[in-house]
């Protein structure tokens, strides 16, 4: 809170810098209203030009009307455009100011004091109104833009609170899922003359293949391709998005798409961390293109050690987490069924993948080793005949050996 009755120039600059920081990090009207409410120790209400609720902040114990529509209509504006609001049965100060984008009215910003006089701080209110105007004008291009700006903010890491994100989404007509999986896709080798049409075709093919019973798929244009943000409230939804995404190149081939389709699939992330799955999807697409070739969509989960290698500088903690994640299904199975799958895998690699020697070391018949290797492949999801998967498993075993705890 700014404790000076009249805000000093320094305090005002500090306040403006706070607004800029919020806006640049993707914060919307709600975040800006919260900043103003904290600065003035007041409740703040933002409504758009159609008197729809946009944001409410700093209410504390202060009661605030759901809308100032009727109050503004009966009030007389002052020459500086500030409307003093009289609340029935209250003596505390309240005022409203029109939010404008140039000459266009975009909404109203109302401040409800908790005791301090607001008139003395009108500078801060005007600055906040200007910042909110930028946000509302971004939304004012119609429903599509309002929705688009939400996803931009979400992926810009603007929300810390899932409820805030959900409320903001709802105010824009978006039913936000609790979790998402991103699929990144690009077409390669397109001829310039047909590129625009082909990209449209790819979008259609992907949407048809990814079609989901769990909600609306968000399509974001990124670079020359797309990121599809698919709702995945449950584990099974994430599994199905991953499977469907890997079918896209086949679906494209079936309709003679005529270009290579490359892509990646991120892991499931909660809504406010959707940026993580998007980053992973794009990373997976990059790795798929560089290492695996062909027309394919690679799930992040199937890339093993490569994402860490791509980042070129994994921390010890990231490496440990990777090792644990790869071996976790085998460990869980071993604990539950009193088996020795992890030990068998380690020995199998230690003896140069010689089943006979591994069997001797383990004091079991070689058929038992074959059986265990089949189990390891099925349970871990890694193909022991694949060089890529072997690298992942070998690395996980090595990390595990180096970090015994």
């Amino acid at each position: 809170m700014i404790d000076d009755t009249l805000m000093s120039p320094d305090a005002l600059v500090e306040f403006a810098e706070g607004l800029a920081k919020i806006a640049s990090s993707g914060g919307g009207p709600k975040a800006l209203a919260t900043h103003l409410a904290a600065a003035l120790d007041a409740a703040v209400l933002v409504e758009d030009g159609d008197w729809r609720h946009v944001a409410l902040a700093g209410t504390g114990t202060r009661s605030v009307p759901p809308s100032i529509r009727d109050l503004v209509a009966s009030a007389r504006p002052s020459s500086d455009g500030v409307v003093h609001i009289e609340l029935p049965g209250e003596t505390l100060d309240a005022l409203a100011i029109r939010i404008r984008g140039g000459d266009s009215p975009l909404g109203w910003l109302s401040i409800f004091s908790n005791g301090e006089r607001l008139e003395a701080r009108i500078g801060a209110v005007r600055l906040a109104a200007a910042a909110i105007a930028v946000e509302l004008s971004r939304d004012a291009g119609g429903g599509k833009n309002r929705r688009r700006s939400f996803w931009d903010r979400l992926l810009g890491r603007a929300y810390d609170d899932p409820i805030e994100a959900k409320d903001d989404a709802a105010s824009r007509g978006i039913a936000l899922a609790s979790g998402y999986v991103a699929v990144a896709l690009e077409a390669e080798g397109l001829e310039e003359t047909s590129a625009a049409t082909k990209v449209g075709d790819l979008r259609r093919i992907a949407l048809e293949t990814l079609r989901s019973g769990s909600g609306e798929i968000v399509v974001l244009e990124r670079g020359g391709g797309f990121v599809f943000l698919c709702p995945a409230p449950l584990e099974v939804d994430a599994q199905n998005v991953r499977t469907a995404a890997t079918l896209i190149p086949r679906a494209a081939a079936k309709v003679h798409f005529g270009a290579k389709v490359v892509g990646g699939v991120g892991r499931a992330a909660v809504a406010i961390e959707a940026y993580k799955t998007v980053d992973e999807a794009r990373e997976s697409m990059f790795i798929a293109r560089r290492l695996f070739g062909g027309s394919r969509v690679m799930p992040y989960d199937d890339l093993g050690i490569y994402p860490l290698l791509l980042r070129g500088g994994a921390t010890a903690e990231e490496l440990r987490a990777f090792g644990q994640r790869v071996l976790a299904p085998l460990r869980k199975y071993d604990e539950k069924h009193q088996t020795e799958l992890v030990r068998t895998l380690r020995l199998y690699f230690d003896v140069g993948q010689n089943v006979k020697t591994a069997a001797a070391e383990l004091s079991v018949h070689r058929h038992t080793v074959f059986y265990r290797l089949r189990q390891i492949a099925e349970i871990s999801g890694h193909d022991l005949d694949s060089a890529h998967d072997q690298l992942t498993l070998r690395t996980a075993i090595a990390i595990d050996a180096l970090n015994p705890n």
Partner: protein
Amino acid sequence: MLSIQTNGERKTLSKRDVLKVAKERDVRYVRLSFVDILGIGKNVTIPVSELESALEGKVSFDGGSIDGFVRGEEADMMLVPDLSTFAVYPWTLGSGNVEARIICDIATPDGEAFEGCPRTTLRRALEDARDVLTGVRAGLEVEFYLFELAADGAPTVQTSDVGSYFDSDESDSGEVARLDIATTLEAMGLSVASAHHEHGAGQHEVDLNETPILTTADALITTRIVAKHVAARHHLHATFMPKPLETCAGSGVHIYFTTAPAGELAEETLFAIGGLLEHAPAFTAVCNPTVNSYKRLVAAWDAPIYTAWSYRSANALVRVPSPQGGLQRIEVRSADASCNPYLAMAVLVASIAHGIRNHLLPGDPLIGSTYDLNDRERDARRIRMLPKSLRQALAELEKDAVVRGALGDHVYQAFRDAKFAEYERYRRAVHPWEREAYLRIY
């Protein structure tokens, strides 16, 4: 060779072919067979002198006395023989009264296919699915018990057999009977893949290779008839009752559908599994249609109880076994042989077709036993429990338009009414367990 049908594959036959074979085999009687809505075998026996007339579809019967067939004054029904199903009953050879059977569709007197005919219901379901399912075939693993007969010839639940899975005891009369059953099925033109002892003492299994789906449904009817006849000749009783003994494994029918060429799991196969899992709670009423069926569907003896799929788990509802004959297969493990196989196949085909049309994905395959799943794991995978009773199953069926649609209004209503009545009779009955549990203490 006692049948025109060979190795499970049927030939297109003319009436003249059938008459010729009947004469060559010295057939004296022909059973014109069909099933009612509940899948119970019915037949009208005619002397061979009437066969020509019968082959022209001129034999009628009173449908009014058949469960679920007709309402009001629609009583007269016509039997329309499917010539490709003509087969001589091998056990009647040399008896002087050689019998053959021919499976019939039911028609109205004006020649229209009767909407209450289970075989017609399956034909229609296959036709409806033709846009997404072509050339799909089905195979069966049929489990049953062979029990001893009492001195008065009544069936018991006793067996002198102490064998278990894949056991071999050539002195066991059950094993001899099982071999005889398999031989007889082959003699009738069915393609037997294998036969072996099952988990329960006295429990056996006969496996039939994949054939066109209508043929496979016919094969289950034939297997039930043959097993009972052959067992009786060995002084045994063959029962397909899903759960004859509380402490032993129940008897099911595992149905295999061949889908795509072997290799990476084809997307259509995944969608088919998705459709099966989606509609499983509803098709359970049809595939497990008796109150006794639900005593098999418990967490024991690898009976499926959840809508889960797996490559290897023996208690998953749907399993994808290793490809055979260069084809991928999916195995539905919940059904039992008390079902009407035509209706069971119809609802399974409709579920598969719905999955393919709507690209329903089934999630990842389950690793390990489905019995180990906790509530949280099931919720995360959207795995549902199969109905625990016929009453629950009927409620699920009522909610599912796809499965109901596969049955058609007439069959659905007749089936539902019959099964509600069956459940109500069971609910009102006082069972021995209740007397044992309550008679003394209350």
